[in-house]
């Protein structure tokens, strides 16, 4: 059990009504929406997005405007709750549990949103999550993520609202924090070896934006 400390990060959370300036997400989004689908009718390509987080009204409006195919997996908390199974064949048991947790149509997605989530997942479980996510990947799929890399960070994974492609608002349910060595984007990438580390931007108060691209 990780030690709980409070209060902390109060400056950040009292101030978090102001949206984050998300340079990497903006560049990914521009890249996806400018991709033309090479069909006979020359229809503009609709990006396919798998969001591991909860459904957010503002994000819906954003995707609605861009007419894309979106899957809300809403699986972060169940993934965080997964621990290493006891008994025989733990790998098989774990893979089965993850497959039930991340239930999405058998499609290949251009973008997987893993916002403030991968660093909360048990590091031993994360490679299995990676293996399951490969079912939904093309050879160009991008994982976009946010992680806290500061010494203290919220006890629970937060919510994100897309305001525009360059602005995303982050909020947490409470101000409780834990002091723990978090997984950095590089450590996450080590647990997800089928992706290569592409870019990372350190944002205020230790929140780090990063992207991984399928090798």
């Amino acid at each position: 059990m990780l030690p709980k400390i409070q209060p902390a990060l109060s400056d950040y959370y009292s101030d978090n009504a102001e949206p984050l300036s998300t340079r990497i997400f903006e560049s990914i989004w521009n890249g996806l929406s400018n991709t033309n689908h090479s069909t006979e009718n020359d229809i503009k390509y609709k990006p396919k997005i798998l969001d591991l987080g909860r459904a957010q009204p503002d994000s819906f409006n954003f995707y609605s405007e861009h007419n894309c195919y979106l899957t809300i997996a809403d699986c972060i908390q169940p993934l965080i709750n997964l621990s290493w199974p006891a008994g025989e064949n733990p790998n098989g048991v774990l893979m089965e549990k993850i497959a039930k947790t991340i239930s999405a149509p058998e499609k290949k997605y251009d973008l997987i949103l893993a916002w403030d989530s991968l660093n909360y997942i048990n590091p031993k479980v994360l490679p299995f999550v990676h293996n399951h996510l490969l079912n939904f990947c093309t050879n160009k799929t991008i994982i976009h993520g946010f992680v806290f890399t500061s010494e203290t960070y919220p006890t629970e994974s937060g919510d994100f609202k897309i305001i525009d492609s360059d602005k995303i608002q982050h909020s947490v349910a409470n101000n409780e924090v834990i002091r723990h060595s978090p997984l950095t984007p590089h450590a996450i990438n080590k647990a997800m070896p089928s992706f290569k580390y592409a870019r990372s931007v350190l944002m205020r108060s230790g929140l780090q934006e990063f992207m991984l691209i399928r090798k």
Partner: protein
Amino acid sequence: MFDINEMKKNVSDKFNKVTENNFESTTNTQKAEAPRKTTNTAPASSSHLASIGPSIHFKGELTGEEGLIIDGKVEGTIDLKGNQLIVGNNGDIKADVYAQTIIVNGSLTGELHGKEKVHISKTGKVNGNIFSPRVSLEDGAKFKGSIDMSETKHEKPSKPQTNLPDNQLKRA
């Protein structure tokens, strides 16, 4: 197969009978009762819609050509063609739904095909895929599944029409 129009006619006939009886008893006793309070979870504009109450549990294919509010349990398929479906706060649906607009205040598991719009209110809980050009979600609404906003798949695929008996159909 279940037809809303038929159901509504039956309900209407029963209602008229009950009203007549009530009128008789009221005139006999010269005593008028105050109208009973009812819980209405649907918006005011939905007063003209047909409704399925909280105590009703229906399994099968539900079709109709008018708007419908469901506060009970429905399992199977719901096809309202170009009309509105409102799932009330108590509504619990496990069905694929085809309608013009779909408003979810209760619980719905299945595919939602909204020709015009799908709206999930703050009390709504949807587990399934949405096919509609417009999708909106209120703060607090729960949704797990996919959203396809392309212009296809909003109408229920029709069964092949044939008058051939089963045995001839098999041979064909």
